[in-house]
């Protein structure tokens, strides 16, 4: 028998293990039994009220140093400092190298003691050219009988024709345009048009240009044209043309057209032209002289260039002269 419990007199027997023998005795109250074994733990009771705050603990020990932070942004530049005092004078430089040997000027007269002279090139001598002068002035002889006599003077104003522009030959074309050949510097221009090549088919016409645009307004070009050919004189006047005819048909290489242009950049006057050309191989092979005088009807537009046109290709080399 391992264990037997008997609770009072109740006939209740609890067997924990196999009971081999049970004895039940009747009678009075028996002696108090031995204390039972501790019961099983009960369920947890409700939480008690919060206790009073404990006293502050002692300060903890200092922590380890943290890692270094990232670099801050650069501050603004400070104001410029005041100028420092002047430095001390530098020490004297070393002596320069010895100069080149001077030129000995010897006497050439017999019996005259030779006197040696030295040319000191470190000294600036008297200038041969007069001092002063102004831009554009020239040296002028001041006395025909005195050597080296000269002075600065202003040359006389240029007069006559001044070559302003010469074009390049280039490749054959039927349309040639020349811009910025007329300026306000001159009122009168001579344009020499030299044919270095021509397919000799049609006549030459001229139109003015302004700021890169050709002017072909109907009636802008009024002209009276006279031609001499084959023993006849032909006069043609026109008030409705869009161009000036300045050379007859079939101008061959070597033909030269003289074209005078007056007041091309004026905004007050009409622009007049005068041209003459001599073509040695007209349609019939007869010499052909063409003279043309004309003017533009408009006055307000300034012209700075011209356009030359033919129905066949040609190469004009032009020279532009200004007349003072």
């Amino acid at each position, binding site marked *: 028998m391992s264990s037997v419990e008997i609770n009072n007199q109740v006939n209740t027997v609890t067997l924990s293990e196999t009971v081999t023998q049970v004895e039940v005795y009747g009678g009075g109250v028996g002696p108090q039994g031995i204390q039972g074994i501790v019961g099983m733990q009960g369920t947890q009771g409700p939480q008690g009220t919060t206790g009073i705050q404990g006293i502050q603990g002692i300060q903890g020990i200092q922590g380890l140093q943290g890692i270094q932070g990232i670099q801050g942004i650069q501050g603004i530049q400070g104001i410029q400092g005041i100028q420092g005092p002047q430095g001390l004078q530098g020490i004297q430089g070393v002596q320069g190298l010895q100069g080149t040997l001077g030129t000995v000027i010897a006497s050439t007269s017999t019996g005259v003691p030779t006197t040696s002279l030295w040319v000191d090139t470190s000294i600036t001598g008297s200038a041969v050219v007069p001092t002063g002068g102004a831009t554009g002035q020239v040296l002028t002889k001041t006395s025909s009988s005195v050597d080296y006599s000269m002075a600065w003077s202003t040359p006389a104003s240029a007069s006559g024709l001044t070559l302003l522009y010469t074009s390049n030959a280039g490749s054959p074309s039927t349309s040639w345009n020349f811009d910025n050949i007329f300026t306000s510097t001159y009122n009168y221009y001579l344009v020499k048009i030299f044919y270095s090549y021509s397919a000799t088919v049609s*006549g030459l016409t001229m139109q003015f240009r302004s700021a890169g645009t050709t002017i072909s307004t109907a009636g802008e070009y009024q002209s009276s044209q006279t031609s001499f050919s084959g023993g006849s004189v032909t006069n*043609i006047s026109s008030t409705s043309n869009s161009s000036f005819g300045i050379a007859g048909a079939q101008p061959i290489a070597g033909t030269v057209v003289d074209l005078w242009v007056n007041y091309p950049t004026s905004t007050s006057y009409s622009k007049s032209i005068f041209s003459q050309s001599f073509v040695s191989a007209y349609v019939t092979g007869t010499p052909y002289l063409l003279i043309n005088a004309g003017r533009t009807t408009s006055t307000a537009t300034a012209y700075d260039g011209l356009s030359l046109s033919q129905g066949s290709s040609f190469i004009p080399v032009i020279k532009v002269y200004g007349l003072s």
Partner: protein
Amino acid sequence: MSEIIGIFNDASTGEVIERPLTEEELVHYNLALQDSAKIQEEVQKKLNDFQSAKEKLAKLGLTEDEISAIVGGI
């Protein structure tokens, strides 16, 4: 119409540009050629009239010198 190549010279810079004419430039160009053709046509008609007149005068019995004295020429 076929493309027309124009030569453009700038005297102030020395620049030379070779390029096709624009439509606007073609209009200017064609107007110039029309003027040229019209003038040549008129000149040629006057030359023909002149020659015809000389021939008619010759048929009337005038000599070359007499005709030149009247109408000029060589």
